[in-house]
């Protein structure tokens, strides 16, 4: 008798197929598999672990409710990320304190140490704690849309086309936001 495979051992596509048929266990396996990435993305966007937790949960619940609309042309996580980014954007806009960044939560134990710059800055002054702080402050002061674009491109590694799709805006706008963000960060560093 063929044994049914455990959900944890199944591919995303199979889990999605089962979840669409009402299998909550399969959906839970999807939640568990992508939770860490989703939570970290939300944390980067919102700057708070507590809010990231809530936002990621909301995104998963929304994904479950709308699973029937998922056409599986993209990967499950790509689809989930789109929902999550919009949940976070909604949260950020609702806060009405867009310039606030949770520096205390972003701060990590190793952060006071100097961080090596990548190539070609490898043989040049490394990133000092003050520079990092100045850049973080400047990042936190960016308008929400620019900040989110920055995170998605520079940290999450999405290209402009993908960001345009996630945010539902033209690619040119994404590029323009990204350039503005970099310009403002550079200016902040020069002035700081």
């Amino acid at each position, binding site marked *: 008798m063929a044994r049914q495979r455990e959900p944890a051992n199944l591919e995303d596509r199979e889990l999605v197929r089962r979840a669409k048929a009402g299998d909550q266990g399969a959906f839970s396996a999807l939640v568990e598999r992508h939770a860490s990435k989703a939570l970290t993305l939300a944390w980067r966007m919102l700057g708070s672990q507590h809010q990231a937790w809530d936002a990621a949960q909301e995104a998963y619940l929304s994904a479950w409710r709308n699973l029937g609309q998922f056409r599986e042309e993209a990967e499950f996580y790509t689809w989930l990320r789109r929902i999550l980014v919009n949940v976070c954007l909604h949260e950020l806009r609702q806060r009405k304190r867009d310039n606030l960044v949770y520096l205390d939560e972003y701060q990590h134990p190793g952060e006071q140490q100097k961080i090596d*710059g990548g190539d070609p800055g490898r043989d040049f002054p490394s990133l000092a704690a003050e520079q990092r702080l100045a850049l973080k402050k400047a990042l936190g002061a960016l308008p929400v849309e620019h900040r989110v674009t920055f995170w998605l491109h520079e940290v999450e590694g999405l290209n402009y086309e993908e960001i345009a799709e996630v945010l539902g805006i033209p690619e040119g706008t994404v590029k323009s936001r990204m350039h503005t963000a970099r310009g403002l960060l550079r200016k902040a560093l020069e002035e700081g």
Partner: protein
Amino acid sequence: MRMEHLDEKLANAYLDGELSGEELAGIEEHLKTCPVCRQWLGIYRGFLGSLTGEAPQWDVDAFTAEVRGKLELAREKRHGAATPWWRGAAVAAAVLVVLAGGGELYRARLAYHKVLDREVAMAVKEHQALRLGELSGLVGEVRE
């Protein structure tokens, strides 16, 4: 390519990996000789590296369990969360017990107050008798 510093457009194109051939070679040549541009790119990339590396440790099991719990709740809600007959009966029985217990309590309290009233009344009488005795003693003393 001779240039003062990388302008924003070129720097962005370089960072986005959009350059190739002569343009790319020109920028790399410039970076070798321009500490200002090189420093900015180094700091910027260092900053990105530091952001990419930082992330909290998440309790994925707890997170998954919470999502699962919320899905269960949502499903119960959607299906009307049909209340079993025995749950209603159990609630009714509990109410009766509380009411009966309440009645008992009320009766006990009443009895207690009766005893208390009686005791108070006796104490008052005793006190009055004492006071009368004292007074009559005093009157006797005065007369004498």
